[in-house]
């Protein structure tokens, strides 16, 4: 469709290309001809780019490109998995709350407010202290923290669509609650939720970076972009690239997710072009 082309533009395709590149690299990291991300070489610390190390080495002599690619693995899997938790639990709760209203809605919105009032850093510290530092725990914490936002988006969208006459029409036809939620409401609520999911991915990548930077995230020596920025900070004066490279990669990835999310939302909005 010509209309699709007009609304996407070059920027969208660049963003999509970058996400694909990062994703592909993360998936096939094991077969790429790159050195191990954890092998140290004490005699080649903070070296500039060379044939052996395309982007140089870090302060322990580990290959920066390899760490960036393996870091993408961790950053992306946490960044994608945590919002999936938020999307499924929060989206489900919001949908049910917006459809059934009443006591259940009061309970859900109250619970959401409680979670929102809980300081996220304290929660992350508490979980790492009691359950140990692992990628799994980090994902669970970030996923849990994402639930309130997804609940609110889903509930707000459900409220608008529940008031529309096609839902009344379905009730008049004798459709049960499950059928109305799955067939009438879900396809409509899925759109704003999907767009919000991509935004959630972007935010989670940043938060994961921040937590790892603070030492609450991914346990070393595993590389994640946040860990790399944190380590690079120590030698910021001698080798600024060690902190800036992962920062730039993270920046581009987050920006791309936001761009794609925005464009997809605009594209799939059925109201565009309606009466």
């Amino acid at each position: 469709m010509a209309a699709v082309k007009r609304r996407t533009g070059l920027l969208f395709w660049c963003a999509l290309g970058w996400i694909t590149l990062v994703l592909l690299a993360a998936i096939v990291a094991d077969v790429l001809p790159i050195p191990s991300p954890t092998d140290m070489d004490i005699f080649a610390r903070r070296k500039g780019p060379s044939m052996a190390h395309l982007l140089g080495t870090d302060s322990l002599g580990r290959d920066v490109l390899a760490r960036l690619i393996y870091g993408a693995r961790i950053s992306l899997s946490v960044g994608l998995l945590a919002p999936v938790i938020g999307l499924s639990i929060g989206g489900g709760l919001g949908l049910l709350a917006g459809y059934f209203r009443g006591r259940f809605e009061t309970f859900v919105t109250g619970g959401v407010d409680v979670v929102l009032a809980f300081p996220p850093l304290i929660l992350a510290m508490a979980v790492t202290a009691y359950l140990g530092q692992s990628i799994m725990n980090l994902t669970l914490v970030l996923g849990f923290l994402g639930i309130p936002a997804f609940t609110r988006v889903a509930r707000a969208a459900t409220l608008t669509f529940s008031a529309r006459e096609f839902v009344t029409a379905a009730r008049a036809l004798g459709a049960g609650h499950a059928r109305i939620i799955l067939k009438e409401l879900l396809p409509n609520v899925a759109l704003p939720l999907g767009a919000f999911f991509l935004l959630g991915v972007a935010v989670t990548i940043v938060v994961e970076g921040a937590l790892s930077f603070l030492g609450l995230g991914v346990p070393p020596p595993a590389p994640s972009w946040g860990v790399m920025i944190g380590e690079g900070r120590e030698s910021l004066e001698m080798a600024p690239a060690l902190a800036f490279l992962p920062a730039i990669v993270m920046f581009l990835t987050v920006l791309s997710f936001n761009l794609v999310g925005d464009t997809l939302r605009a594209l799939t909005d059925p109201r565009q072009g309606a009466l």
Partner: protein
Amino acid sequence: MTALLDIQNIVVEFPVGNRVVQAVTRVSLAVQRGETLGLVGESGCGKSTLGRAVLQLYQPQSGAVLFDGQDLTKLAPPAMRKMRQRLQMIFQDPIASLNPRRRVGDIVAEPLIIAGVTDAAERTRRVRAVLTEVGLDPDITMARLPHEFSGGQCQRISIARALILEPELIVCDEPVSALDVSIRAQIVNLLEDMKDRYGLTLLFIAHDLAVVKAVSDRVAVMYLGRICEIAPTETLFRTPAHPYTRLLLDAIPMPDPDIRPVEGVAVGEPPSPIAPPSGCRFRTRCPRAADRCAVDMPELTALPGGQMVACHFPLQ
């Protein structure tokens, strides 16, 4: 002959904050099989609420809705679900009444799926047939989304959805109010054709008297949750008995610049349904109101010629 739809003393209330609004107050109404009953009144008078209460979309506080002899308010959910196949509804906003994310073919097939028609080929055949009936080309329409159609076409799709189970009664809730004037006649004619072909009974809710006059056999006039007058269409438009009906008829604009608007009829806004006037609800705007009107709520009483009016001082 027993009526197909017999509404008896129905009351519908909604909570508004701590108070209760009575949207429909002890309304009784009978619709004969094959008849079109027009239901008119200004916005907020409870006519849509009454229509939805018939379909049990609102649970009435008291009263009965007899459909073919069975009280819908007392049916258990599974029996009501089965009964819904015989009662359908068409809505005012043709675009909002179709799910924007589902294809027209699926929207029209939905009643069949809910009714338990499991054979997909059979469903497709019936969807194609009914789309053709309402004047749409199934090859073009079935795979498209509702927003690709105009308001009039969307209303045709709604009508197809209402017809596919071959119901006996259709509640039409202002089916043409949201449409262009040029399209209204087409949709009204389509409803008339379908009524003949399927032997339908229609409860036709509208505020446009011209449309009601064109389609109805009998007309009921509602004001603030009460029925003022019920009469055969001809009688009602020729010799209205209730002052409110008179007011409505006088408000129809004449396509003649020399005719001046009638002076001296009731003016002002209808009172709030939260605190309706005592006695006759129309007395605050009625030119004939007397002391008795503030005390006694008039009940519907029969006049000669099948006309019924709820007024202490009818116009005849």
